[in-house]
């Protein structure tokens, strides 16, 4: 049965060091930012994070040294610049083990995890030095053709942000958005699923959404934990409800450059009184 509760309680209960956690969203869209902030507030460390395209979520967590191992195909602030703490953590502090994937290989590894196959062959990795440095990427031959076989990703927990959830645990997101599969990919492969939503609705309201042409993004079979977090993806974008807050991302990018200003950012936007976004 799905557990519905406040973000802080659920984070305290289910996010523990060493857990393998995948994040929904990509590239400043649909990120589970309220959970990221709560992880920082609760000073949880030692996480192993999987995200297709990391941005503010990852840079914040690296800034407070919460991540021990990171898997992604890209970490940066698209249209704004480099992710400062990502560089520092790797180049100077060597405080994180970073495993780079290509976008397609990571997508295939998520898909393999979801269907329960332990590894999958693809060809776009051929010729890449990633194969040389990743001991879990293997060159194989099938019927005389070369492939790279990558292992499935099976996180202990997936965390995604979505539009609404009913009391049964069905999760809704309007059709004709561009990006929901950036969240279902890292969710379907995980052993447990934690969804934050803009709002919790009644089962009847859920059925009305269905009648009006929506489908469920996750069914009650998929979800384990649900918390209400209005504007929970902010400052990443959540189309069609709110855009990526590029002004805020630029502010962050500036304040991330020095430890002192980063602390000010944390105080103002994470530890301080929660303001209306």
């Amino acid at each position, binding site marked *: 049965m799905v557990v519905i509760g406040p973000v802080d309680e659920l984070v305290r209960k289910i996010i523990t060091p060493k857990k393998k956690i995948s994040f929904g969203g990509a590239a400043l869209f649909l990120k589970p930012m309220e959970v990221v902030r709560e992880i920082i507030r609760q000073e949880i460390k030692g996480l192993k994070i999987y995200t297709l395209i990391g941005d503010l979520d990852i840079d914040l967590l690296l800034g407070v040294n919460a991540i021990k191992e990171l898997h992604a195909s890209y970490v940066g602030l698209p*249209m704004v610049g480099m992710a400062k703490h990502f560089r520092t953590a790797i180049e100077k502090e060597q405080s994180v083990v970073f495993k780079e994937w290509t*976008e397609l290989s990571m997508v295939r590894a998520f898909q393999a995890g979801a269907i329960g196959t332990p590894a999958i062959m693809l060809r776009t990795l*051929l010729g*890449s*030095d990633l194969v040389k440095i990743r001991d879990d990427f293997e060159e194989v031959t099938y019927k005389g053709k070369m492939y790279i076989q990558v292992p499935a990703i099976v996180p202990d927990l997936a965390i995604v942000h979505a539009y609404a959830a009913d009391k049964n645990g069905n999760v809704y997101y309007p059709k004709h*958005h*561009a990006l929901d599969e950036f969240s279902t990919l890292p969710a379907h492969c995980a052993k447990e699923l934690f969804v934050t939503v803009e709002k919790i609705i009644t089962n009847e309201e859920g059925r009305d959404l269905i009648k009006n042409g929506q489908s469920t993004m996750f069914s009650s079979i998929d979800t384990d934990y649900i918390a209400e977090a209005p504007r929970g993806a902010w400052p990443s*974008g959540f189309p069609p409800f709110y855009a*990526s807050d590029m002004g805020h991302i630029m502010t962050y990018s500036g304040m991330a450059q020095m430890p002192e200003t980063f602390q000010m950012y944390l105080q103002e936007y994470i530890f301080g009184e929660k303001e209306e976004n």
Partner: protein
Amino acid sequence: MSSEYTPIDQIVVSLSREINNNETCYTGIAIPSAVVAVQLARMTHAPNLKFFYGGYWINPDLDVDLFTIMTDTEAFRNSISKAQGFSHLIRLYEYWEGPKHTLSFGFIRPAQIDQFGNINNSVIGDPNHPKFRFPGGAAAGDISNACSRVIAYVPRHDARTFVEKVDFITGKGASPEWRKRVGLDNYTGIASIITDLGILDFNSPSGTMRVRSIHEFSTTEEIRENTGFDLEIPPDVPTTEVPTQVELEVLRTKADPLEIRNFDSRNR
């Protein structure tokens, strides 16, 4: 409207001219000049291009700025009913290696590129303890083996970017012999590179990088000085065709009124 144009205007216009009508493509969202070039091509010589945007829309409405779609919720809603079709992100990922060989071309903005067209968007130095950590290849390592050809662009042509041998191969270069050997000969890898100095390709006798044309505001010497290896410059190397009045007007008023392309000059 001024007929003066900036290097980034030349880059976008040249990128757009690499696109043929009736091809199929998509772009990532973090390479603004490529998105703008696709719009420009659709508005000029390639109206039948099939273009995925955001992994979902096929041929979004030309009257709506693509970046506005992603940031303005009302524009997002309106755009839905005007696109020529809809697909799914998962389906787009199927096209990369699926049975139909769907994608004609893709774009890469390399952090490093060498004389063979190998690109590096990963690290400088020891991969386990790098001196410099780039954001990562995202799809750059995939698309050279998933799109029939790749169009690269480099907003600032310098010797840090154009190196004899990349520190790390994030994505394999042109290398026709290697492609034949591993059975990837349907994919040519990087076919052309547009920079702020000129256009480069691999159509030299040795298959290494050569200059295809030089922009009217730059010189052979400039290209040679800003390239970290000996690249072939044919004696009769032509000047790049300058942007036409029509291209510049469409670019400024319709394809990129918000000047998103300038993000590429600011961030590298």
